[in-house]
């Protein structure tokens, strides 16, 4: 890709006039000539998890074009025409282009949401040298942040973009601008981006679905568990608006994961909290989880739309349209229902109760919660060991027939172990915990594929009732069920091999290294 010299931004106290610039920065014989003057809106986009920023990319909408910009160099790497400044969009909905491919590789499941909308007044000048050759563009910009009443101040900038081959010639201009009294900082594109995010109250990389709570091995498990629960609570709170605004399905997914993790912490670490309170909140969160099931089920099927269609011959694919339309319609109902609940006073009361519980600073009665004062390290080692041994015991008991019930139950055991490893990951050395999680992940993927296919088969079986005389739909259902049955059986057949690989000396050694404490 042809590179263009990096633009340098000079933040000024007010808009500088071309006369001031000409007087104060131009060498003899150099002049500024007006190139253009425009008022426009620009917007920046990223996913809720900052997928673009994480990969060093800024997604900018400007002049009816969507650009991908390298955050460090400010170089545009791809562009595509783009209308309006929507609140969010999915990468898949963009026209086929290099930009679409690049954005899809960042995320095709998460929506790119508008981070900020800026009104920009730009007057650009050509900087001509003594031969009347343009050597740079100087743009005087005033940026107004829209929708942020608390930040009324405009940002004034002067952007200097040297032409290729004229970087050295414009160095004195750069130096003169830096020395101007009116200039209070010199920024590169990354710094400008971060400034705009700060002014628009965006917390760059302020959210990650990953479990990153840092625990101290010698802290009491009560303290650590509260930290973990505070984290899962914050994830629930952060995802609520995204669910209500219907931005993408990952908000609900992360919300549900946070709920499951909350329940797991409370169930797996018994004896840490007051038993009565523990049970009360477990029930509360179970009920809350159930409220989200119907919507999540619909999300999952809608996400599978493409793969379902692709697994059928072209002549059968249209028969799935009403099927997915029905799912989309019922999704709307469930979404409204859940959104209403999340806005209700009942929900707020529950949140307040939970917050009150988390804010209790004192250790509960030692007699009733004997585990609470133990060290995080000892509880971590014990609970992980117990969960691992249980998984091995249950896995070894699985009969040759590997029934659905056995595999479903084992998947839950796997999940419990995985959660424990993730909760306590921060107290272990990364090189000790990562291989253990990797081994477990393989088994989880196998069991996940099995349960996934099994649940889908069950759902499709229920759909058979909808078939009256629609033979094409019947054929499609048949086709999909055959495919899913094959996937399920493949996963079942693979199970013994995967479990044997997990129940192996090498994995045992990894767990042993982890649990003997040397990796702490």
């Amino acid at each position, binding site marked *: *890709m*042809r*590179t*263009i010299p990096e633009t340098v931004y000079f933040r000024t106290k007010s808009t500088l006039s071309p006369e001031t610039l000409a007087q104060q920065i131009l060498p003899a014989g150099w002049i500024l000539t007006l190139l253009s003057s425009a008022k426009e809106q620009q917007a920046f986009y990223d996913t809720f998890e900052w997928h673009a920023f994480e990969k060093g990319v800024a997604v900018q909408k400007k002049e009816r074009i969507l650009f991908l910009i390298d955050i460090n160099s400010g170089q545009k790497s791809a562009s595509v025409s783009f209308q309006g400044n929507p609140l969010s969009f999915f990468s898949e909905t963009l026209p086929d282009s290099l930009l679409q491919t690049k954005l899809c590789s960042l995320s095709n499941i998460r929506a790119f949401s508008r981070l900020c909308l800026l009104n920009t007044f730009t007057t650009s000048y*050509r900087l001509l040298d003594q*031969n*009347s*050759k*343009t050597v740079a563009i100087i743009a005087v910009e005033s940026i107004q942040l829209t929708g942020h009443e608390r930040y009324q101040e405009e940002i004034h900038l002067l952007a200097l973009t040297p*032409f*290729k*081959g*004229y970087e*050295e010639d414009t160095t004195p201009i750069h130096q003169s601008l830096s020395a101007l009294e009116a200039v209070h900082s010199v920024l590169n594109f990354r710094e400008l981006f971060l400034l705009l995010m700060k002014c628009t109250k965006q917390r760059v990389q302020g959210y990650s679905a990953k479990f990153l709570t840092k625990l101290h091995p010698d802290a009491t498990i009560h303290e650590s568990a509260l930290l973990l629960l505070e984290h899962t609570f914050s994830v629930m709170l952060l995802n609520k608006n995204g669910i209500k605004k219907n931005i993408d399905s990952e908000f609900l997914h992360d919300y549900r994961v946070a709920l499951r993790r909350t329940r797991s912490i409370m169930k797996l670490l018994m004896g840490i909290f007051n038993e009565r309170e523990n049970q009360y909140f477990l029930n509360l969160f179970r009920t809350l989880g159930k409220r989200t099931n119907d919507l999540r089920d619909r999300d999952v099927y809608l996400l599978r739309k493409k793969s379902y269609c692709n697994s059928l011959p072209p002549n059968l694919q249209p028969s799935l349209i009403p099927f997915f339309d029905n799912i989309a319609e019922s999704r709307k109902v469930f979404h409204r229902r859940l959104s209403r609940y999340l806005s209700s006073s009942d929900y707020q009361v529950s949140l307040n109760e939970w917050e009150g519980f988390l804010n209790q600073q004192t250790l509960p009665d030692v007699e009733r919660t004997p585990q609470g004062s133990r060290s995080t390290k000892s509880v971590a080692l014990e609970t992980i060991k117990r969960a691992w041994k249980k998984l091995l015991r249950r896995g070894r008991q699985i009969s040759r027939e590997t029934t659905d019930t056995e595999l479903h139950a084992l998947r839950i055991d796997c999940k419990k172990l995985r959660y424990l490893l993730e909760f306590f990951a921060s107290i272990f050395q990364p090189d000790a915990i990562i291989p253990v999680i990797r081994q477990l992940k393989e088994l989880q993927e196998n069991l996940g594929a099995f349960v996934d296919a099994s649940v889908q088969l069950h759902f499709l079986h229920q759909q058979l009732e909808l078939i009256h005389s629609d033979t094409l739909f019947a054929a499609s259902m048949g086709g999909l069920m055959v495919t899913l049955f094959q996937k399920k059986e493949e996963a079942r057949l693979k199970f013994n091999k995967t479990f044997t690989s997990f129940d192996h000396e090498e994995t045992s050694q990894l767990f042993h290294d982890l649990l003997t404490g040397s990796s702490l």
Partner: protein
Amino acid sequence: MKTIALYSIKGGVGKTAAAVNLAYLSSRFFPPTLLCDLDPQGASSYYFRISASKKYNSDKFLKGNKKIYSNIKATDFDNLDLLPSDFSYRNLDIELAEEKNPQRKLKKNIEELSNDYQLLFFDSPPNLTLLSESLFAASDTILVPLIPTTLSIRTFMQLKDFFDSNKLNSSKIRPFFSMVEKQKKLHRDIINEFRNTPGFLTQTIPYNSEVEKMGLYRAPINAVQPNCPASKAYLHLWEEVIKLTELQE
């Protein structure tokens, strides 16, 4: 990246004007475009008000790729860059003779630019030397401007003979008539005689005072006077040329 040379054994045939205007049009339709000024007289560079940096010379040019890339300069027009000529290019032939495989040198030296530009134009010096041979190998298309006069046609025949005797691919050669004065009978007769000759482009470039004024504007005529007859002719020539490059579907 497709490469197009503006080449003629004879000077003063409108080679540079064609290179500058076609490169400008290319930058608008197939951005980005690079114009590589190989003529030590540096007329293309002059038209764009660009001179090579003091450190740049034929040595750097022969080192190729990165050395070339770092000496490319942006013109005043979006997506049009120029590798300026340097007076030291007058010795390129001698220096080229000392290189291994000089006929392939230019092609090799621009390889890395293919990620940066869709089209590259060469404005070449008027002679038939080792540099010209290297240029022939590096170019996908060789546009040869011809004034419809006997001498011009004679140099074109010399070029054809050279290709044939050296077993070069003469199908790359695409002549077109330039600086045409329709009021002159000789011009009309020669154009009529060669009109249907295979390989000849149909568009002709008229003699137009606006083209001469490019030296005053120091910009492509298509940028400053897009509606003058010469600009329209260059646009039609461009449309004919782009079809040869396979860039246009």
